[in-house]
Structure formats: structure tokens, C-alpha cells
């Protein structure tokens, strides 16, 4: 019987409009790798943030080696032996490897306020050896590739065991997103070794990886525990069913309302290329059509969309609308061409959070509310009220700050602002990220309705199911190139596996 080193009991956490976690439980035993899976918005990140002290739970408790703890900062969590390798790498690239490993914990090498670099270097070598990394600890981090940086992060996390005098609990959040196949194998062999001296929580979207590396798997769905599985007794399908937990083929994505696109081409893209990002991307987007790009991080799908939105110029290729060539070198050029971009990072690129709903909707096109050269607050208010009603935005009124709206309602404001400019094409970059389940369905409904009115969509969806469910056509992308074009009519949807084999 292994000891339980970490136990999460009935943890709940609520954000405005979203119950992020609802009485979840989780146990991690000594020398065990536990997988944590779930769709975006299932509550994984929230739980991790609670574990490392970035969020405080509303109720429930966390026990480390049987003792209740309530870390209030990352530093405090580290003192309990809880540490995380972050999804977006957190090493400081302008410091050396050894400085990164001991950042914030320099006391051990400090006498009279002066750091003994030799001693730090020796210690760093010791830590690197634990993850089998042969590397001069004096190397600057920016010189390392992502895989090596990941190992350094791991060494940094493990280094704390020397301070805390007990085995660390290591959290890995999507550790493989920036790694290629060989690097992933290397990471896994090191994790297997690390397991002998630590407990590990492994979070990943890639179910195959989770099946390969973990001993047990917890499935989260909509902030709740949806299942607990022994890895060697389960398979992708079972995990998947628990993650999604609903009838996929049904009406969730409003497939009954999926239309056949019209003949007219709205945007023609030919050989769009940006060196190092994407190459020879060509396609026709038709009136009322929904085309999805499916691919892993680094497939170039985000970059293609940003090029069409005028945010990141392509090196070569041609974009034409109604037969005439267009230079989309800025967002305003894209807007003039009738393209509206719904960005992934809603709070930064989508909305000015500290402005109210009205000014956000009118921002791309103030001419709607300009009379004799001056802005009319009255027209602005009317326009805002119109969109609040039309899109059923839940808000106290047009003067409500966007900051205070829930994710779903914020997204509706972003959509309204483009609809007010009469866009013909929407580029949707993860449109349902951070949007709760009910509001997601409203967004799907809206997309269908707009497609029916002839608006065309380029979509980067949050999940493969969303990709398949919403699209007329799916382009799989890998290493910057379109690898396959898969039709997805309402009555004959492809399976996730049909897409995955062209993405990997």
C-alpha cells in the first residue's frame, strides 16, 4: 500500500458566472504518475492554480502527506513540496541555467550577501544529473531549445526536495505541447526515472500520451469529477466518452441547422506563405461556409488566421475578394475587406475591458454614430441597446463595463462589434474558450444563424469535437501545410481519428 502524498477533498471554486470547480476530489500516491484530463473549461487549470497557491478555493481542503495546507502563494506551495512546470515556460531567458534553477532560493549559496557562484554551479550540476541532463549550468537559457529548457524546469522543480527534505509533488501542465516526437520520448523516459523519487500530476490534451505515461487517470468535466480510471484497464474511447459525457452526434452543435454553402467565393487564398510559419496555403471560402483548421500547436493554423486578420503579414501568396487582389497589412485593411477577427485572447485583443459595451461595439466603425462630425452618445446608446437585445447579452445596461461581464457575454459583445460593421467573414480563434457550457450553445446557435445569412467563417475550434460538429469543411494542418481537406456535411461527419492521423 502506497502512501497518499496529496489529497484534494471537495474543492469548489466559483468565478463570476462560472462554477469552475464543483466539489472535486483527487488523490496522488507516492511514486505515482496521475493523469488529469478534461476539455477546456473542465476546471483542470483552476485546480492546478489552487494547488500552487495562485487561487484560493471557496470550500474544500488540500492535504499534503495527511496535513491540511492552504498555500497562499507559489512560494508557500513550494514549501509544502508542491511545484509546477508551467505550460508557457517560466524560465528567464536572460539568466543562466543555474540562476534559473535556484531563482528565489539563493540563500544556500550566499554569505554576507554575496553569492558563491562555484558552489551554486556544483549544486546545479547535481540537480541536472537527476534529470540526466549534461549541460554547463553557466549556459544562458535563451541558447537552449525548448526540450532542454523543459528539462531544466524539471530540474528546478526537483531541486526543492533538497530544501524541503521530502519528496516533491511535481505538476506538469501540458508539458509536451512544445516538444517533437523524440523529445517527448526523452521526457517520458526521464519522468519514469523521476517517479522513483516523486509523485507526478500529468496534465495533457493528448490522451495517447496520458495513457502511455500515467498509472491512474482522473477525468474532469464541467468542473466536476467525471471518472477515475486505472490506466492499463482503459483506452482512448472510454476516457473520451467520460470527458465529453454527452451525446456528441446530437444537437449540441446545432447540426440540424448546418447549411450547404453557396457557390459564391467570398475569399480566395492562393499559396499564402510565411517562412518558418506556413507554406502554400490555398483555399476558397464560400458564402455561408464554415471552414475549420485542425492542427496541433505549431501547425501554423493560428498564423494563417492572424495573417487574414491583418495582424501578421504573409511573405507571399495572394488573397483576393470578389476577384480583386487585396493587401491585408493591418487590421483596418482586413475590416475594410469585411473580415472580423474574434481573437483567442478576448480580454486583451477582443475587448477594451475598461470601456463599457457601447464604446466597444462602436470602436471599429464610429461612422454609425457620427452626426455632422460629432459622436452622438444617444445613437451609441441606442445601438448598444439594439445589440444587447439582439444577441441577448446579459448585462445591466449599455454602460456596464465589459470587465464585469461573463466570458460568454463578453464574446457576444465581440461578435456584435463586428456584426455592427457588417462583416462578411468571421475569423474565430477559439471562440468558446472560457465560455461556460450554456453560453457555448448560444454561440453555436448564433454561428449557424449567421451562416444562414451568408456570413462565412474560418474557425479554430477548442476541441476536435467542436471542429467536426460545426464545420462544413475541415483542413488538417501540420508543420505549416494543409495535409488534408475533409468534408464534414451534417449527415456524414468524420471521426476525430480521421483528423488526428493527418495532424500528427
Amino acid at each position: 500500500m502506497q502512501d497518499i502524498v496529496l489529497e484534494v477533498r471537495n474543492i469548489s471554486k466559483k468565478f463570476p458566472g462560472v462554477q469552475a470547480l464543483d466539489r472535486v476530489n483527487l488523490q496522488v500516491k507516492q511514486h505515482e504518475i496521475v493523469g488529469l484530463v478534461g476539455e477546456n473549461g473542465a476546471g483542470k487549470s483552476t485546480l492546478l492554480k489552487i494547488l500552487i497557491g495562485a487561487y484560493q478555493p471557496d470550500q474544500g481542503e488540500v492535504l499534503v502527506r495527511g496535513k491540511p495546507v492552504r498555500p497562499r502563494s507559489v512560494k508557500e506551495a513550494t514549501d509544502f513540496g508542491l511545484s509546477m512546470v508551467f505550460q508557457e515556460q517560466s524560465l528567464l531567458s536572460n539568466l543562466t541555467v543555474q540562476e534559473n534553477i535556484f531563482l528565489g532560493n539563493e540563500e544556500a549559496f550566499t554569505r554576507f550577501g554575496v553569492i558563491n557562484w562555484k558552489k551554486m554551479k556544483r549544486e546545479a550540476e547535481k540537480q541536472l544529473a537527476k534529470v540526466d541532463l549534461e549541460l554547463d549550468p553557466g549556459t544562458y537559457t535563451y541558447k537552449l531549445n525548448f526540450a532542454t529548457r523543459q528539462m531544466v524546469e524539471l530540474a528546478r522543480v526537483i531541486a526543492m526536495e533538497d530544501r524541503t527534505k521530502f519528496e516533491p509533488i511535481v505538476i506538469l501542465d501540458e508539458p509536451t505541447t512544445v516538444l517533437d516526437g523524440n523529445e517527448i520520448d526523452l521526457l517520458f523516459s526521464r519522468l519514469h526515472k523521476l517517479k522513483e523519487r516523486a509523485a507526478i500530476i500529468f496534465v495533457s490534451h493528448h490522451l495517447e500520451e496520458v495513457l502511455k505515461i500515467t498509472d491512474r487517470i482522473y477525468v474532469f468535466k464541467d468542473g466536476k469529477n467525471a471518472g477515475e480510471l486505472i490506466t492499463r484497464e482503459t483506452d482512448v474511447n472510454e476516457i473520451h466518452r467520460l470527458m465529453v459525457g454527452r451525446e456528441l452526434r446530437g444537437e449540441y452543435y446545432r447540426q440540424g441547422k448546418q447549411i450547404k454553402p453557396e457557390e459564391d467565393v467570398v475569399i480566395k487564398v492562393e499559396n499564402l506563405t510565411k517562412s518558418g510559419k506556413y507554406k502554400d496555403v490555398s483555399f476558397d471560402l464560400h458564402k455561408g461556409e464554415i471552414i475549420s483548421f485542425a492542427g496541433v500547436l505549431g501547425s501554423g493554423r493560428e498564423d494563417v488566421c492572424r495573417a487574414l486578420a491583418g495582424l501578421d503579414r504573409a511573405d507571399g501568396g495572394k488573397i483576393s475578394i470578389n476577384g480583386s487582389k487585396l493587401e491585408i497589412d493591418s487590421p483596418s485593411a482586413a475590416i475594410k475587406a469585411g473580415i472580423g477577427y474574434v481573437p483567442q485572447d478576448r480580454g486583451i485583443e477582443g475587448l477594451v475591458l475598461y470601456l463599457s459595451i457601447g464604446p466597444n461595439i462602436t470602436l471599429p466603425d464610429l461612422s454609425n454614430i457620427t452626426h455632422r462630425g460629432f459622436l452622438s452618445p444617444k445613437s451609441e446608446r441606442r445601438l448598444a441597446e439594439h445589440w444587447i437585445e439582439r444577441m441577448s447579452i446579459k448585462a445591466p445596461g449599455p454602460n456596464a463595463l465589459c470587465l464585469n461581464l461573463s466570458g460568454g457575454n463578453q464574446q457576444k459583445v465581440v461578435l456584435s462589434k463586428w456584426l455592427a460593421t457588417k462583416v462578411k467573414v468571421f475569423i474565430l480563434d477559439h471562440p468558446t474558450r472560457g465560455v461556460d457550457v450554456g453560453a457555448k450553445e448560444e454561440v453555436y446557435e448564433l454561428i449557424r444563424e449567421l451562416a444562414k445569412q451568408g456570413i462565412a467563417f474560418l474557425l479554430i475550434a477548442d476541441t476536435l469535437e467542436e471542429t467536426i460538429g460545426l464545420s462544413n469543411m475541415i483542413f488538417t494542418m501540420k508543420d505549416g501545410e494543409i495535409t488534408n481537406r475533409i468534408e464534414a456535411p451534417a449527415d456524414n461527419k468524420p471521426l476525430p481519428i480521421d483528423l488526428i492521423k493527418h495532424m500528427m
Partner: protein
Amino acid sequence: MSVQTRINNYRKTKTWVDVMPIATLVVLVILMSIGSPRFLLPANLLGLLSQSATLLVMGLGQTFIILLGSIDLSIAPVAAMATIIAAMLIPDLGYGAFVVALLYGAFAGLLTGIIHTKARIPSFIATLGAMGVWTGIGFIVSNATPISVSLANGHYLTWVTENTLGVSNVVYLALAILILTFVLENYTRFGRYVKAMGAGEKATYVSGVAIDRYKIYAFMLCSTLAAFSGILLSTRMSGGSARMADGFLMKAIAVVILGGTAISGGIGGVMRTFVGVLIVMVLDMGMNMAGVNPWFQQAVYGGIIILAVALTIDRSRISIIK
């Protein structure tokens, strides 16, 4: 910090910032009228207002820059240059001298605006550099000696210095600028874009706004108003000098911040700056009456800037303060 506490903090700071400046003003006015029964007499108030006109005009320009989340440190030397240009050119150009001074202001703003946006240099540094450049040029052009407007040309100054209906023209001029900037802020795309950029530049860019262009406009407006305040100074002093606007920079920033415009950008406006000017006006008078020496007054305003920012800043919006 959770989203909810962030929202609560925001609400708190918002109401706080809305009420504080006016409350401060009311308290100060009450204290002053107790201390000196003459304080509330219209003649006294109008006198104070005419003395504050220069500061108001300068502060109104700075308001737009601070709304952007930037800062313009070059306004005092730009105003001083304008006094020199006006004083030097009146003999030849008459009223045209004032036009040249205003054009100079617009040009100075264009220059810092371009350096800030196109060369991507923080406004703090771009305008600090401009401050040095214009101070130096001011001393060179004026030979480091004050230039006075001769009595024969004195009639070119009366449009500012004379009274109309018993009130100094400078008061009308300053109030006209207040109305003009209020309209710019609230009823034009320029004002809207300035606020949007200050509150969320990336989203504003994605919405198709020509960010750089409107930032340059803001710097041009600020410098032009600084030059206009220089013109007001030169007419009252009947001359120009490289030192004429000394000490104005700190006060012009103080009135914006005291009025409740957030240094983090996006929140605030010219009416708040007007309240800020009234506060400084009353404080000035109070300190003068109490016989506080001018150097100590300078220290008081330095302290006030820090205190006002400490009270009004919305720290949740800025995770790291540099």
C-alpha cells in the same frame, strides 16, 4: 487575485476616484472661507482663476497624454519656447507671432509623437529628451536673457490682458479651451480613440484604429496647448524667457492626477483636470496666506502627486510596477 475581487477593487477605486477630488475641493473651500471671509468674494475667485489659466491650459493638454497611459515631460520648455517666439516676433509679425508660436507647439508635439511611436521609444524618455532639447534651444535663441515686448507693441497683448464685463480675458480664453477639449474628449473619434488606447491598446488596434496616428495627434494637441499657455504667460509678463515656465511641469501633472485621471490610462477626462486645477488654486492661496515659503510649496506638490497616485491607482490592472 481572483476575478471577483478584482472587479470589487475596481468598483471601489472607481467611486473613490469619482468622489475624492470634489470632496477634497469642498473641504478646502470650507476651510479657506472659515480662515478668510474674503475668500469667497467673486472678485477674489476670478482673480484666482485668471492666475490659474496658464496651468489649466497646460493641464488640459497633459490630460490626453495621461489618458493614453503616457506622459509628456516637455511641456514647460515648450511653453517657454513659445514665450520667446512670441516676444521675439511681435515687432515684425504682430499677431502673427502668436500663430508662429502655436505652429511651433504643434511641430514640437509632432516630433515627440513620431519619435515615441515610430522609433518606439517610451514617452517618458522621448519627452525627457525633448525637455532637454527645448530648454537648451530656448537658452540659445534668447541668449539666456529675458526678451521684453516694448511699450509701443503693447497693444498686441491686450486681447489676453484686458477685461471684458469685469472679467479678465484670460479667464474666457482658458474656459474656451476647456470647452474645446471637453468636446474633443467626448464627441470626437480622437477623444474616443485616446480613451480606448489608454484602456486597451491591443483591442483598439485589432478594431482597426490607426494607433500611431492618433497618438501623434495627442502629442500635437498637448504641445500646442503648452505653447498656448506660453502665449498667455508672455502676454501677462510682456515678454519671453527660457525660464518663464519653470515649475509648471510638476503642477500640470499634479492637476491631472489630483482631478482623478488614472496614470494607468483610459479613465478620467478634462473636467476632472478642471477640478484638479481648482484644488491647486485653493491650496496655493491657502499656502500663500499662511506664509508657506515657495520652495516648501514645491515640495508640497511633489508629495501631493505621489499621494494622489497612491490613492487613485488601480493596482490590479498593473501587476508589475516599474
